[in-house]
């Protein structure tokens, strides 16, 4: 079963909750799909066994001939190739590595080289959490390639927990789309409600069953809770705001560490979600 933990708004507690779920359950696959700003490893502290570079192929223009690369510049959808006289100006950060230059450019004058856009790290967290994360190289924009590389390790027969990036655009969709259940984490504020509604629209469109967790309850108002009850949306749990937890979090301590009652709560939450799936 694949459980994703997502949120329209950033900073609501996705990673806190996803990692707490994994640690409470103890045996699962855990994926940090927020490859632009991955943080789960601070709380899970995995023993990293393997690092895999993620590469794309980008063109190299052999300009020591009198061949024209105008075709490449015209073909490129991303404006990564431009011509100034006999000079080719190439913007690596804009290039998606589509291979178009090799196809349309002068035969034999365009070759390709591997360019690293990030990496995947795999490891273990005791007792039995298989940990996977992606890490995008700052300055590149190839979030997709990192997430695609990560996706290949999902074994859907296992219990899989996916920590998603914030928002509702394609990087979040990639993280959520394979899941059987999505836990939407929000905060009880107008920003939280606004973004919760956007993310609910999305998971409904993807036909993914979902439930809501209100985190840092008490800092705002009851609009989110009212919205959930008025719209028959399953409220899975509420976690009250707690300065001590905020301080633990700031140090990179897992919230269930030294809080057995919280660990129980997360175990119950996991069981509830798994049972709901089995009931379908």
């Amino acid at each position: 079963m694949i459980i994703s933990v997502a949120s329209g708004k950033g900073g609501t507690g996705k990673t806190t909750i996803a990692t707490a779920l994994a640690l409470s359950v103890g045996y699962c696959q855990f994926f940090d799909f927020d490859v632009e700003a991955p943080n789960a490893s601070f709380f899970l502290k995995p023993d990293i066994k393997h690092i895999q570079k993620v590469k794309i192929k980008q063109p190299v223009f052999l300009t020591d001939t009198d061949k024209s690369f105008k075709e490449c510049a015209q073909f490129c959808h991303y404006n990564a190739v431009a011509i100034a006289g006999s000079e080719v100006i190439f913007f690596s950060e804009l290039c998606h590595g589509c291979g178009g230059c090799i196809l349309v450019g002068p035969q034999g004058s365009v070759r390709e080289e591997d360019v690293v856009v990030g990496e995947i790290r795999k490891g273990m967290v005791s007792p039995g959490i298989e940990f996977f994360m992606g890490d995008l190289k700052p300055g590149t924009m190839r979030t997709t390639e990192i997430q695609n590389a990560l996706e290949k390790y999902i074994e859907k027969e296992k219990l899989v927990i996916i920590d998603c990036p914030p928002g509702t655009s394609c990087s979040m969709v990639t993280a959520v789309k394979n899941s059987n259940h999505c836990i939407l984490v929000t905060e009880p504020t107008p920003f939280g409600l606004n973004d919760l509604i956007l993310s609910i629209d999305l998971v409904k469109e993807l036909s993914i069953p979902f439930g809501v967790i209100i985190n840092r309850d008490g800092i705002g108002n009851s609009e989110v809770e009212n919205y959930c009850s008025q719209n028959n949306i399953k409220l899975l749990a509420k976690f009250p705001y707690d300065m001590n937890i905020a301080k633990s979090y700031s140090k990179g301590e897992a919230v269930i560490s030294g809080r057995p009652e919280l660990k129980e709560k997360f175990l119950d939450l996991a069981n509830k979600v798994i049972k709901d799936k089995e009931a379908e």
Partner: protein
Amino acid sequence: MKKIVIISGKGGTGKTTMAANFIKIAHGHVAVDCDVDAANLHILLDPSIKKKETFIGGAKAKVTGDCINCGKCEELCRFEAIKDSTTDIKIDKLKCESCEVCVYICPTKAIELTDEKQGEYYISDTKYCSFVHARLDPGAENSGLLVTKIRNISEDIAYQQDKKLIIIDGAPGIGCSVIASLNGVDYALIVTEPTISAISDFKKIYEVAGFFNIESLVCINKFDINLDNTAEIEKFCANRNIEVLGKIPYDEDVPRYLADKKFIIDSADSPAAKEIRNLWHKLEKSLYK
């Protein structure tokens, strides 16, 4: 004309709250919300929309002609967007990156790129300034292109109205939305907080800003929840000559004011409000020195 973008790396550090409060106290400015897939600034600014436009983000490949199942497109697609091309071809719109390699290679010209509506953008008036904002449809891509579009419009408006400043609320992360919101700005104000997660993301977004030759300024929000980490951020900044413009204390009034959709700087005695006001004055000085 000056442009300042407020970014964070990590979500939830207070970008939008800061941006909104700056927008309230600034003068002669235009505002733009570049967090297009989870826009929040409008909640505080209460805009009246004057103009609404459809955003056609990009075209996706679609089989519109006679596919002869030769399989060439699938072989060459670097984004794994094409499946079953030798039997019953399927193009995954989410994975398609619009490169047109398949369009080019198809022997029967059976594939075309077709425009996809991916969102909307708005030009609005608020009590404080003109405001450009957008909404990306759920699951849509090309958020970077939508950000670029609204950035352009905000500059058009600023030139038309002879405004000297654009305040840009950025998106979280370090990907294409944020990079598009960084384009050509004078300063990036990085709002961070003293947590291990935020520090890691702060370093990344600082690196990205540097990669695009943008000077960063820093604000440490809720600095007093972990003084050791605050000191670590300050040391990182000092070593690189990055100015820490302000340190905002944790203040329960901030979320309370937000819950009522009010601006914290309107509070006479909030310690956070005082620091935000100071920070804005310092920022203004940097912009116009």
